[in-house]
């Protein structure tokens, strides 16, 4: 065999490598040419020993080059074929990845509960602790300690559910404000609390009333708390809830347990303040009542009004949810219709 034969042999092998269309075939080709015992190229190499020393060097060089070339061609082809087979296997495992898959999935928040958590989070950022209080109260905490003695005209808007005997001494709280009193009596100032919870008033259910609804009460008592602080706090919270562009206004009002008292309105989102059905032509929607805690109420809570002042506010997440999500009937909030819940 001469280097020329070796070249021919190599060319044949390369061609067969290229033609091998599976790893199995390729292995046959490898055995035929490079098989350790009787591969054609292996056999050709064994002839090296029989050559004259002057030929040996040149042939050896040629042999090494040829077998190297074959090995790398073999490896390359093997990689190629292996990849192809993996592709085929994967092709066989085809999945429609465009399928709009809906898994068992996440459950949904109730709009009011979600809003309450959002309000708690906003105030947590301002250092307020979320606390709860009893939903059944006595007249003392619900009214009297909050400057509403029996026959007080402000009780008119607090149409109250009373319990039957033997629990006749209890009522369903009409607002979350009694928790203010309980918080003040429980721990000395400074106090920053937020109190979400259910309240009840004896209103027949209609699109704007449910006999049970939610309130979120806030209270801040410390040295030197001002009405400006109340305003800044409310503006921050309202913008956080309604968007930074929403106009807010504070208006004088009256609550027996605050002095001065204010209500906060946001511009009506439907008419942008021009007046429409949603806002009863007012252009503004009332969302919150607030004020500086009345000195008498502080005193009732065991806080010295000469050293401390505070503000309190209360908002209705049910109403806010209806406004924010464009719903039309408060009663829908208590049907728990999944078609509504799934929006949240």
């Amino acid at each position, binding site marked *: 065999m001469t280097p020329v034969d070796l070249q021919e042999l190599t060319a044949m092998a390369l061609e067969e490598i290229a033609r091998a269309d599976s790893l199995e075939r390729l292995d046959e080709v490898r055995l035929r040419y490079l098989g350790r015992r009787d591969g054609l190229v292996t056999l050709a190499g064994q002839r090296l020993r029989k050559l004259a020393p002057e030929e040996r060097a040149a042939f050896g060089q040629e042999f090494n080059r040829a077998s190297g070339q074959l090995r790398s061609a073999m490896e390359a082809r093997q990689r190629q074929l292996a990849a192809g087979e993996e592709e085929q296997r994967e092709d066989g495992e085809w999945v429609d990845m465009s399928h709009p898959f809906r898994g*068992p999935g996440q*459950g*949904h928040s*109730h709009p009011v509960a*979600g809003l309450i958590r959002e309000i708690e989070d906003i105030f947590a950022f301002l*250092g*307020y*602790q*979320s606390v*709860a209080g*009893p*939903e*059944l109260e006595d007249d003392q905490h619900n009214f009297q300690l909050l400057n509403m003695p*029996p*026959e007080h*005209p*402000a009780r*008119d*808007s607090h149409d109250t*559910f*009373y*319990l*039957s005997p*033997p*629990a*006749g001494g*209890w009522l369903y709280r009409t607002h979350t404000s009694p928790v203010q009193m309980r918080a003040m009596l429980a*721990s000395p100032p400074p106090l920053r609390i937020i109190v979400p919870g*259910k309240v*009840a008033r*004896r209103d*027949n259910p209609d699109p704007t009333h449910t*006999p*049970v609804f939610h309130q979120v009460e806030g209270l*801040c008592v*410390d*040295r*030197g708390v*001002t*009405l*400006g*602080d109340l*305003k800044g706090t409310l*503006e921050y919270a309202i913008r956080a809830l309604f968007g930074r562009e929403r106009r807010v*206004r*504070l*208006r*004088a*009002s009256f609550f*027996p347990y605050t002095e*001065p008292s204010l209500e906060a309105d946001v511009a009506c989102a439907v008419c942008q303040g021009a007046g429409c059905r949603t806002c009863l*032509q007012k252009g503004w929607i009332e969302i919150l009542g607030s004020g500086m805690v009345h*000195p008498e109420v502080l005193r009732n809570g065991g806080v010295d009004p000469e050293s401390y002042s505070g503000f309190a506010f209360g908002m209705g997440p049910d109403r806010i949810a209806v406004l924010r999500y464009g719903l039309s009937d408060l009663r829908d*909030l*208590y*049907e*728990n*219709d*999944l078609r509504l*819940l799934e929006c949240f």
Partner: protein
Amino acid sequence: MRVSHEWLSEMVDLEGVEPARAAELLTLSGTEVEKVTAYGVGLDQVVVGEVFGLRRVEGSDHLFLAHVAIPGQEPREVICGADNLFVGALVPWARPGTRLPIGVEIGRKRLRGIWSEGMLCAPDELGLGSEHDGVLILSPDDAEAGMPLDRVYPADHLYELEVLSNRADCLSHWGVARELSALLSRALRNPDVSRPARSGSGPMVRVTVDSSADCPVYLAEVLTGLGNTPAPAFVRRRLAAIGQRSLGGIVDVANYVMFEVGQPLHTFDLSRLPASEKELEVGVRRGRQGESIPCLDGVRRDLDPETLVITVGDAPQAVAGLIGGEASAVGADTSQVLLEAANFNWARLRSTSRRLRLRTEASSRFERQLSPHLARAGADRFIHLAVRHLGATLGPGAAGGVPLTPASAIRCDPGRISSILGMELSSEAVASPLRRLQFEVQEDGAEMLVTPSPYRTDVTTAVDLAEEVGRIIGYQEVPGTLPPIRQAPPLEALAEPVAHLASTTCRAAGFSEALSLSLVSGEREGLAPRLIGDLAHLELANPLSAQLGSLRQGLLQGLLQSAHHNQARGQDRVRLFEQGAVFWGRGQERPEEPWMVALLDLADDSTEDGVSRLRHLMALIASLSNVGGGGAVEFRPVTWPALHRARAAEVWAGAELRGIVGEVAQPVADAFDVRGRLEVAELRLDGWLKPGGRPGHAAPLPRTPALVLDLSVAVPSRALLGPALRAVSALGLPWLEQVTPIDEYLGDQLGPGLKGWTLRLRLRHPERTLTTAEGDAARQAVLRVLELEVGAKAR
């Protein structure tokens, strides 16, 4: 309350102040204006015409042909559908070419072959209220033919006010004018209350008030010489504008004074009172048991010692502050009256008003703590108007009654007001708004002595003054700030509330959040499965309906109703949870309010056996406990009312029962009209889960390999796995790290009444590798326990 812009402008200069601007100022300062409507605007083109002739239009049963004229012109024919016309009537006539305030242009119209020259207008067509009962008939006292109608009805705007419950002083034009005067910084013009001289005709009045707490002021005057004179035109027009009907001169003027000054008045027909020529004994006392009085509205009302009455010669003549008696009512023939301007205890009036189920313009003012100082202004204004416009003469006067204590001064530090409001205000900046509100302000060194207007009963302390200053300056002027945090909030504030943890966990498991009213039907509550035994039901004393008559004792009734609601709307899978307080009665003691969560999983699928959903629910309970730091939970099978008898378990954490899980019994599902299997759970969270949850316990990672062995046994088919596993761990086998059930075989190869369990035991020695022999010993030990506990056999 309705207030007229034109009327207000008599008491405060409103030149150049648009009604919308006035409305905004009032609203921001606390007197909310709900609506502003134009009243009689643009009536200059409508003319007053006189009806000269009137006949029916032939062939019509409701149309009339009127001949209407203005001086110097021939009468014209106008067709009209109203039946209140008469010859000589003065009527608003919109001639062809007139544009009415409601936007309609009037033309010549041909009706039944007759050309109608414009139209005769009803009040609503002129923008004068909503009345449409007939053509507006004008009084010859107010109008004459040929006059443009705007001379009778000057352009006006009406404000619909929502007055705050502590601001009785704003329930009048004068009161609102005082507000606008302060807000606009324009002078206040008080109503004319100049009194004529006394004539001496009529009896002298002697007033006896039993209790000045019931009646702090009672002013009485006799007026004589009144004829059947109508109230002057401006009185009738203004009353009409605010929606008050004209009821004759005396009553109209009394009403006018109430709406103008704010003081309710009552007039008694003197001739119908038991009085002598010389003297009249008026008393204010409590009613007596058995007394009654026929009232102005034709209803006889019983009196009692809680009711305040006005008497003449000890005979009840009126329920004080509420309603007059029929016997002494003023009528068309009244020529002399006893005028009452008084003030009554607000709380007493409120309870009387509630007891009699009667509320009047007068009582609604007294109830709100009207100032007793208004009585004098009210009486004087009535006397002024009656003498001037009704021809009255003032009688000799009254004796008795009690003197009023003047309003007392409030000492205040302007610096304190600044610090309440959070604004830097000079003394002058504090004093100015107060002075504009007719408060007297005297400097006293660094402090001020402020005497509020006598008509304000709501201003008594320094913080009240701060509110006055703030609202008159306007809260838009207060800079918004945040209170500094000088002391760290309590560490508890850092913890995530249990309600958040529970909600997040349930939602992550695919359950959606529900909220129900806490009021339920007591009857259905008994049906719903619940965690508690026989605690008393709490019922409302004054429920809206039986459906909402009880307080919920558990959360499942609400969820079952929601399940029905959703299923009825086509949902075939309903997964809901709710958390909240429930209410358990404790006799007279404070009711208990446990914080609960309930979960419900409903599938409307008859081929599905519910087991995997029930297992999923139980797994969720375990993870709730895990995230809330509630420890390992254990399920103990029970039979429970309203639950499937073979699919119910108590949920225990440590030594405490925390809830119930199971499948709702079919009859209960039927009672709530729900199809399909309902898997439910109800758990009490308070006292179990902790705010913020608790990080799980972590042990150092082991350094030696575990020996893992599987043990397959045959057990009776009703064998319980929970107690079996508990027995294995109670064994306290050394190095046994974990026992996990990995398979349950329910086929019949094991023989009748048997099933198979495969448990995987994991053993580990802390320092060395365990030997096979040690593993076998452990396996034998476990097998023995299982044999004892559930009769297991190796297989």
